[in-house]
């Protein structure tokens, strides 16, 4: 912001009122920016309007969806249940919520340990975490498939085709980027608070649950929501782990609807896409500045 603050007084000082540039000069300096913006917004919004419009064409196929807002009919939304969309939505909700809560709890606990305790192997564990992040889970999907195949013989509830199995795979990524994000945040909570609580007789568990976690709520919310959004958008691992249609998550389910676009129930798919996208878009709008802030500040520190 400081850049903009510097420029504004300078503009007035040279006796050109920034807000009242007119005519050719306005076009040259500001107007063209609006043109760029409007063009870009059209490019951004048209595909989204297309989905919205397609979702309102009853029994729509690909061909019937080309004329934007030709009809207004909510039958696709009411028919979503026939293809099992709501059970996919429920599965996704369960998987993403449990993953988000688990990620927050385990990540916060680990960040607390790294931030507040000094123990043998602390540096080693931190470095190890950093290294483990190097190998993205998606690369290991073949091994994950075979691993769950084997685990399923022992614990069927943790094997293939099980939501719990999928959650466990996602929780494998709970420590990692999130832990470092939280670790940095935990370090900003003054240690004097812990010490004061300790002197008053609080145990380490009480300090963790009732003091630290309350003070770092913003980062917990951000990590939880990021984890929710990323497991919601995951396709590869969900597709590998889940094979039965009734267990599909939204990503796998909507893919199965639209896989062959010629015969796809396009209106139904579009309705599902709208329902699935709205909460995520709202979350993003809400999270926007946290995400940018976290990304850039984290990167400078390396």
């Amino acid at each position, binding site marked *: 912001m400081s850049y903009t603050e510097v420029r504004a007084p300078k503009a007035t000082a040279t006796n050109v009122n920034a807000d009242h540039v007119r005519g050719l000069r306005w076009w040259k300096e500001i107007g063209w920016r609006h043109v760029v913006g409007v063009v870009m917004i059209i490019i951004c919004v048209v595909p989204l309007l297309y989905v919205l419009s397609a979702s309102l064409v009853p029994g729509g196929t690909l061909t019937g969806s080309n004329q934007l807002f030709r009809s207004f009919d909510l039958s696709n939304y009411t028919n979503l249940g026939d293809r099992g969309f709501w059970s996919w939505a429920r599965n996704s909700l369960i998987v993403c919520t449990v993953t988000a809560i688990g990620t927050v709890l385990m990540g916060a606990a680990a960040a607390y340990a790294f931030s507040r305790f000094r123990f043998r192997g602390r540096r080693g564990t931190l470095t190890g975490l950093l290294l483990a992040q190097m190998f993205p889970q998606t690369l290991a999907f073949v091994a994950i498939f075979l691993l769950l195949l084997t685990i399923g*013989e022992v614990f069927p509830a943790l094997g293939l085709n099980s939501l719990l199995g999928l959650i466990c795979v996602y929780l494998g990524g709970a420590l990692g980027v999130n832990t470092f994000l939280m670790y940095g945040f935990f370090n900003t909570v003054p240690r004097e608070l812990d010490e004061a609580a300790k002197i008053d007789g609080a145990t380490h568990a009480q300090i963790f649950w009732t003091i630290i976690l309350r003070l770092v709520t913003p980062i917990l919310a951000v990590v939880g929501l990021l984890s929710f959004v990323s497991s919601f958008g995951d*396709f590869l691992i969900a597709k590998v782990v889940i094979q039965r249609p009734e267990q599909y998550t939204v990503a796998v389910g909507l893919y199965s609807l639209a896989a062959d676009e010629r015969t796809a129930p396009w209106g139904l798919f579009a309705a599902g896409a709208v329902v699935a996208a709205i909460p995520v878009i709202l979350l993003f709008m809400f999270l926007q500045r946290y995400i940018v802030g976290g990304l850039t500040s984290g990167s400078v520190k390396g």
Partner: protein
Amino acid sequence: MSHQQTITPEDEGTPPRPPGERPRNGTGGVSHARDFGRGFWVKLVLVALIDAGAVYGILSAVSVSQWAIAGFLVLALVLVNWAYFSKRALPAKYLLPGLVFLFVYVIFSACYTAFIAFTNYGDGHNSTKSDAVQAILIQNEQRVEGSAAYPLTIVSQGGTLGFAVVQDGTVEVGTQDDPLAPVTGATADGDKAATVPGWDVLGFAQIAQEQDAVVNLRVPVSDDAADGSLRTSDGLTAYVYQSTMTYDPATDTMTDSATGTVYTADDHGNFRSADGTALTPGWRVTVGFENFTRAFTDSRISGPFLQILVWTFAFAFLSVLTTFALGLFLAVVFNDPRIRGRKVYRALLILPYAFPGFLAALVWKGMLNVDFGFVNQTLLHGASIPWLTDPWLAKLSVLMVNLWLGFPYMFLVCTGALQSIPGDVLESAKMDGASPVRVQRSIVFPLLMVSVAPLLVSSFAFNFNNFSLIYMLTGGGPDFQGTPIIVGHTDILISMVYSVAFESGVKQYGFASALSILIFVIVGVISWWGFRRTRRLEEL
């Protein structure tokens, strides 16, 4: 948890002292025995549940001979109980849950990938050698000429079908998985079983209903596959079938008694005859670096593989370049405080980023359809441009869609970075007489790169493995012709891995894992190099 009194020195973050000096219970804090707070009971219940699960898992792992899982569970059980009931393991109490998941689903699966990469694991090589021997014996069973016919009673128990026969006066029952065994209390009607306790005897109508299952049912005579099995073709009479193959463990050969052909075990997990015919299934063996070299030496694969490799680099690089260029351009354009409604512009411009990526790819796939798509039909008034079916246009489409998806992220990041550039730096440049272009080129851009460059490296690594975009938009197509695996012009390495592992007819986990390792090495080296370069930027 609350049994831990935090006035002991270890809790204040000092390094643990040698065990001998440690204050004992009752001297340094309140002992476990006297501290039964609410937290303790919560912990007790949780750990008890985990223990119960682990004990169940150990028993069930032992019963299916999964020794690795059993061993891991024993270790985990000991660790969990030690961590949560010992006074020493304070950090472990907080680290253990996350570390267990990390270990199983990230570290182990990474190591397992590396291990599989050196084996021929896949369809036809799924299991151990003894399983393969059994399977070959079973597959080659034929009715033994002149053997006795057993009048058959078909029984079922909870949906499992079984055969009941009378052998030497006693009724024996067997199913697909359990060989024939005598049943006490069963009655026979002549040479045919009449009732079997615990089993329902199926009538003619039920047999007719389950005809396929009955005809395909194979009930082993004993645990040894060489003894053969009972099978039926009409549901009334069963005959003993025996394998025409015999396995000789001493010479490690399989002999076909019908033709006299001898199949010898080779080092690729197959029984192979002198003329090269292999018996299926084979078994899993390590094959060294074969999976790694195969992509380069197998002439039917190496051509497409090299094309995919080049395209993967091009795709990842061009994706980063285009999204960054457009994002930076827009960030600079909108970084002027005199523009009204900047907030509205920003909110609308990040919509493609907020829209879930997998959905965007599917929507674009529909919009770019040749015959019915929105782009050809509405925007281009009935053109039939093969956006996704022509090799080069498909590549262009993939890049364009990824640009649509990715530029808002770069726009956000660049906006943030531009706004964090200190104003006094810019002002002093102006005082020194630098032109606006010069300021952008020599001050703004280098400062911007310091914070954005690491994100460009991550973005490269992300796009290198951008499976869902490719898989959902083009499915890798248009396909190459004449390759043994189904891959196409827009496939990137990770979607090739998926195709090799699951979608090319014969599943080849070993080859797929080797390709995964290759991707990991490539991405790792590039990231390492990239981050080193960005460090240097920071020193500017």
